[in-house]
């Protein structure tokens, strides 16, 4: 069932309504994942995954819970190694990079974790300043300048002295975004940035994602299952299910897709290719069997 669906899935590069669309060829790829296989124990998480992230675009990676979206991010950042297949980030094959190479690469990436992951023993200002203090020798004045600028960009310059525990979920995410941006990375990765946010905070984060991407000319990868929200800002999207890409293209194309699993996901239907019932023996049989015992 799945292979037939993947065959019918529209490919990236088709009629793209984004600005400055690269004709034909899928633009300049900053991340290329080819034929990725990864498993943990008995569970095979990815089987033959192919993803291309275009430079300067916002790419959404969506899928049902448990498809390994966070695992994918950890593979892209080199925190874990694939069993088979290649991952090329900014022209470098991750498998060929040593620890130092990976560290250098990560300095050019910014990542926003699911609940912000701010360091609890530092206040907001120090959290944002953390990468600067660890990686640069910039004078205090300059650090202050940069940190306040980034905080201002996310609208939290006034919260600079607060402790992470005092922040609301949305505010914590914004601070984490400021921290992810402080070294002016070329790529920003967002892991479920909308999870658990109220509509206002959600709107704020959405706007920031789009603004940062355009203003700074960077690439953004957003892992999310908030279909409605992410569809409003993403340029490209990938839908993952059962270890492979089942659909890709612009959000509009995905919405228009006729594939069953895509339709179930995009419209949020309770039952479909992703079944409602966890595999169980026949209902009548099981009820009757208990009576006998």
């Amino acid at each position, binding site marked *: 069932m799945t292979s037939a669906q993947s065959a019918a899935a529209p490919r990236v590069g088709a009629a793209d309504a984004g600005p400055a669309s690269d004709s034909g060829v899928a633009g300049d790829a900053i991340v290329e994942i080819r034929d990725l296989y990864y498993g943990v124990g008995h569970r095979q998480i990815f089987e033959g995954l192919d993803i291309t992230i275009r430079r300067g675009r916002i790419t959404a990676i969506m899928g049902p819970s448990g498809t390994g979206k966070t695992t994918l991010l950890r593979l892209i950042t080199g*925190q874990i190694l694939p069993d088979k297949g290649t991952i090329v980030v900014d022209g470098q094959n991750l498998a060929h990079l040593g620890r130092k190479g990976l560290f250098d690469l*990560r300095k050019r990436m910014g990542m926003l*974790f699911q*609940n912000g*992951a*701010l*360091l*609890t*023993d530092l206040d907001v200002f120090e959290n944002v300043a953390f*990468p600067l203090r660890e990686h640069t020798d910039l004078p205090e004045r300059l650090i202050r300048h940069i940190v306040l600028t980034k905080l201002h960009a996310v609208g939290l310059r006034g919260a600079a002295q607060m402790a992470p525990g005092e922040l609301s979920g949305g505010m914590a995410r914004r601070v984490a975004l400021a921290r992810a941006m402080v070294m002016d990375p070329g790529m920003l990765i967002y892991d479920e940035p909308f999870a658990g946010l109220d509509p206002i905070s959600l709107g704020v984060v959405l706007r920031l994602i789009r603004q940062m991407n355009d203003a700074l000319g960077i690439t953004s990868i957003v892992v999310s299952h908030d279909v409605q929200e992410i569809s409003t800002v993403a340029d490209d999207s990938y839908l993952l299910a059962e270890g492979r890409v089942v659909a890709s293209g612009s959000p509009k194309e995905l919405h228009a897709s006729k594939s069953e699993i895509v339709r179930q996901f995009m419209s949020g239907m309770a039952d479909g290719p992703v079944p409602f019932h966890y595999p169980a023996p026949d209902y009548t049989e099981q009820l009757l069997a208990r009576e006998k015992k």
Partner: protein
Amino acid sequence: MIGVAQDLWLSLRRALETLGSMGLFLGRMLAYIPSALLRFDLVVAQIFNAGALSLVIIMLCGLFIGMVLGLLGVDLLQRVGSEDALGAGAALSLVKELGPVTTSLLFAGRAGTALASEIGLMRATDQLSAMQMMAVDPVKRVCVPRFLGGVISMPLLAVIFSAIGIFGTQLIGVQVMSVDAGAFWSQMRAAVELQDVMEGVVKSFAFGIACSLIAVYEGFNAIPTAEGVGRATTRTVVISSVATLILDYILTAVML
């Protein structure tokens, strides 16, 4: 029967694996010490965390143990007519054994659990992963300063414990139970050598390395859930306590 033996063997194997893993972890941290000393502000903050914050409990317990030594010591020594030896007996017990060991056990309970739960919590809330993503080695930034803080604090706490203990013994023995002050101090001076004090310091230094290593290791490798952090904290106290007493025996035997 076989089942029990098998379980025992498995436990032993797991214990050996943990021991080896801790040893490797220690090696990794030791390699980072030179660079950690460059960020001395972090180490100072951890000396405060592990040492200064433990001061009250150490001083309190030291005082009371010293006073008990005074009470018991006078009672026991009076039976053989040598209560003047109180000073010597108390000082030697404290400086060589009670000071380092009790401090280590208290340290494991107060500072060890704090270290383990702090690091465990950072693990559970993705802070350590975030650091890795920001190209900062969490071992270097989080673990090593805490390890150094513990190693530096422990001998200091132990000598403070012993000193206050002797004061406590003197308080009870001389002021309350009228042991002669001159005899108290003179016999102490006669019996205690500088070497005894140094042996105690060496012991507490070794305990410091063990307890700090265990606390940091357990926290760093905690399962990233609330339950996991709790387990890591408990294991820290248990393993630190046992390790202290085993090391104590080995060191005492070696130094005798």
